[in-house]
C-alpha cells in the first residue's frame, strides 16, 4: 500500500476489513425502489457509520 500511495502521491487514509465493509454496505444501502425511501440526512448517515463501528474524525461527514 505504501508503494501505491507513493506512486500516486497520496497519503494513507484508513484501512477497513472486508467484513466491516460488508456490515457497512448492509446498513447503508436500502433499495431506492421502495416508495417510502428518501435520502438520509447527514446525521442519519453519521449514525449508520457509527452503527458499524466507524467513528472518529476520519468518519465525520461534512
Amino acid at each position, binding site marked *: *500500500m505504501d*508503494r*501505491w500511495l507513493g506512486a500516486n502521491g*497520496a497519503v*494513507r*487514509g*484508513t*484501512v*477497513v*476489513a*472486508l*467484513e466491516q*465493509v*460488508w*456490515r*457497512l*454496505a*448492509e446498513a*447503508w*444501502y436500502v*433499495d*431506492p*425502489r421502495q*416508495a417510502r*425511501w*428518501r*435520502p*438520509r440526512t447527514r446525521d442519519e448517515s453519521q449514525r449508520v*457509520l457509527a452503527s458499524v463501528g466507524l467513528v472518529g*474524525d*476520519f*468518519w*465525520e*461527514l*461534512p
Partner: protein
Amino acid sequence: MRDEQRRNGRAEETISLRIFIYDRILTRGIPPTVVEIAEHFAIDRDDAGRMLAELNIGKTVLVHPATGEIWMAGPFAAASTPYRVLGSQTSWWANCAWDMMGVAFLANEPVRVETSCTDCRAPMTIDVDPRRISRDAGVVHFLLPARRWYDDIGYT
C-alpha cells in the same frame, strides 16, 4: 391549492423516476439514458433531462455535469470501473469497494466481484452474499476522510 398539487405531482414524478432508474439498472446492468427516460414517461428529451437534473435525492443519483446523463446511481456506476459485479442474470459496475458490496444488497442475491488489487494489480475475485457476512481476509483502503468524499466523487 395549485402549489400543493404541483408539489404532489413533483413528488410522485420523483418516485416514479427513481424506481424506473433502479429497475433498469437491476434488470439491465446500466442506468437508462435521457432518451430512454423520455420514451418511458412519454415526454420530450429536454423535459426528461430536466426531470433527471431536478431529481434532487441527495447524492444517490448523480448526473454527469458534461453529458447530463446518469453518472452514478449508488452503488452502481454507469460506465466501466475496476469493480465488475456478476449476478445470476445481470452484471453491473460498482463505483468502489464499498459499493461492490452494496450491489449484492440491492440485487438481493449472491454476486461475484471481479476486480484487482489496487496496489499490485493482481486480479482478485470476491464473493459477496447479502445473507452471509463476508469473512474474506481482504481489506479496503478508504483514501479520503468522510468530510471530503464529495469534493471530487470520481476520485473518491
